[in-house]
């Protein structure tokens, strides 16, 4: 798992994955903040569904970018279209694999739930 390597902020280049880093809370916070802001820009205020209790923003953020390189994450943060495409692909894979949950009668993918959580956390 790439996440075992941890995240650090690479100044001036957004969030990049650097092998060997410690996965500190500071890097988690930055990831949550940056990704949350990008998602909040996509998702109109007041539309994100409530999500299951117990899931934290850092968990959601890590799950959303799991397996991506630092450059790929930077690309997502830089372009809303790329972020949407990523969410769609990952959300589809979630549904195919049964990684989903029910919210107010709707079946949502784990990715959608994480995106909702992060978008709200950034507001």
């Amino acid at each position, binding site marked *: 798992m790439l996440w075992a390597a941890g995240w650090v902020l690479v100044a001036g280049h957004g969030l990049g994955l650097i092998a060997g880093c410690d996965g500190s809370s500071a890097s988690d916070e930055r990831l949550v903040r940056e990704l949350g802001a990008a998602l909040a820009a*996509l*998702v*109109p205020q*007041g*539309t*994100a*569904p409530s999500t299951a209790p117990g899931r934290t923003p850092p968990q959601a953020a890590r799950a959303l970018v799991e397996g991506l390189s630092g450059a790929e994450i930077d690309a997502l943060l830089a372009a809303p279209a790329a972020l*949407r495409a990523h*969410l*769609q692909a990952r*959300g*589809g894979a979630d*549904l*195919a694999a*049964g990684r*989903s949950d*029910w*919210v*107010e*009668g*709707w*079946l949502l*993918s784990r990715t*959608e739930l994480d*995106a*909702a959580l992060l978008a709200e956390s950034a507001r």
Partner: protein
Amino acid sequence: LIQEADRVRRDARIRCDVCIIGAGAAGITLAAELAEGSDLSVVLLESGGKLKDPDTQDLYRGELRGAPQYPLDASRLRFLGGTTNHWGGMCRPFDPLDFRQRAWVPHSGWPLGREELDPFYERAHAVCDLGPYDYGQDAASAAWPGVTERGARLAEEEDLEIKLVQRSKPTRWAKKYSDLLAGPDGPRVILHANAYQIVPDPTGSRVEEVDVRTLQGNRFHVSAKNYVLATGGVENARLLLLSDSVVPGGLGNRRDLVGRFFMDHPGATPFGVVLFFDRAYERLAVEEKHAGVGVFTGIGMSAAMQERERLLANAAYMYRPMDVPTLAELRWLEHPKVLDPPDLRMLEFLQALDPGRGDAKGSICWIRSEQAPNPESRVTLGSELDALGQRRVVLDWQLGELSQRTFHRAARFYAEVIARSGIGRMKVMPWLLSEEPDWWQRVAAGWHHIGTTRMAADSAHGVVDPDGRVFDVDNLFVAGSSVFPTSSYINPTLTLVALTIRLADHLKARASAGGVAAPRRAPPPSQ
């Protein structure tokens, strides 16, 4: 030839080869089939007239218990043509699995298979004014390719079956067969003629006559070589139970099976709301006309999934989609709005993540399910009397845990496959995602009365044999959905018509073998 019962001479005895009681889909189909290629004289008794009248309709009134049912004097029509006068026309044969004995469905299994009924289904298609008899997956899939990539993906789901349905015009039997019924070569139709009792010989093994009475006080008798009860899924049982002059408990009821195993098609409307992000709805939720016959599709579970997960047969359908704002304003019967403000926010959220979902259409999804046969779900006689002095029915509709489990699993399954394919998302009604103890109060009946004189291979397990003959009564047959041992999920009319055609063939063969044939002439109306 059509005449009024009050013009028959009081205490007259009308003789014929076959006396059919009830002029609905089964009774008229039987009369029409017997008029082809046989010389059998037929008397067709109809309780009502040519039009609905409140006094006759009131004979249907009964008491309801258990899960919610529609009033018995509203769900059925008691005049020439019977309940086909408000038939919706949905047709599809039962699936092969529906006929099988299934270990997970108590009391399941027909004494005949789908392959035995196929030729009769094909003939029933002509009766019901349908298109080609082809409901296979090839035919269903033929409606799908090229719709959209996501639609094709849905159709390829391993456990999903596309259920092709044909919709009849719908056929109105009284109108379709009006020339035959009124003409010299058809049956002798007697209107406003109520079968009061079916009277057997002292041994109870052979019917000798039907005691017929009218609301105006006339009475007469019909004596036939064979009798066919075709008064619907509730009245067939009622008339057998009322016919207790010789056999205590009613004719054909030595084993206390008459009236038991009542089934309907438990359903839910709405079952969910589907928001389509894709034009697959053009196949899934829009009925097309082919040569005057409506064709549409539902989605159901494969036989393998039913068997693996021990579920009942069921299918979900979608109403014609509409713009989401329009749907959001819609109120469905006693339900609040089908889409609430949080649902609209959910749509906005989903669209924000994928702009390709921008042109959403909304459709109400409904489901019909098979009901597991249950001996405690039954028709009995109550204490209240109707205008003829006959005991009214008590209908106690009992659903079981298998129905609840099927509903819950179906809701999740259909929502999952719709989401997985990408064609849209389905909002499932909240009660389907919880374990409400009174879930059965949420279920709607399907206006289909089934199973009260069930067919079986032997008299220990049913009321009629595979030919539709009442066990232990040599010359009494039952036609209609009351003989179905299981109900499937689809409307019963096509299947009951197929079984009736099969019964007609049997009666003709029986007449040929037993020498009961007589000149096919309606007895003169002067009797």
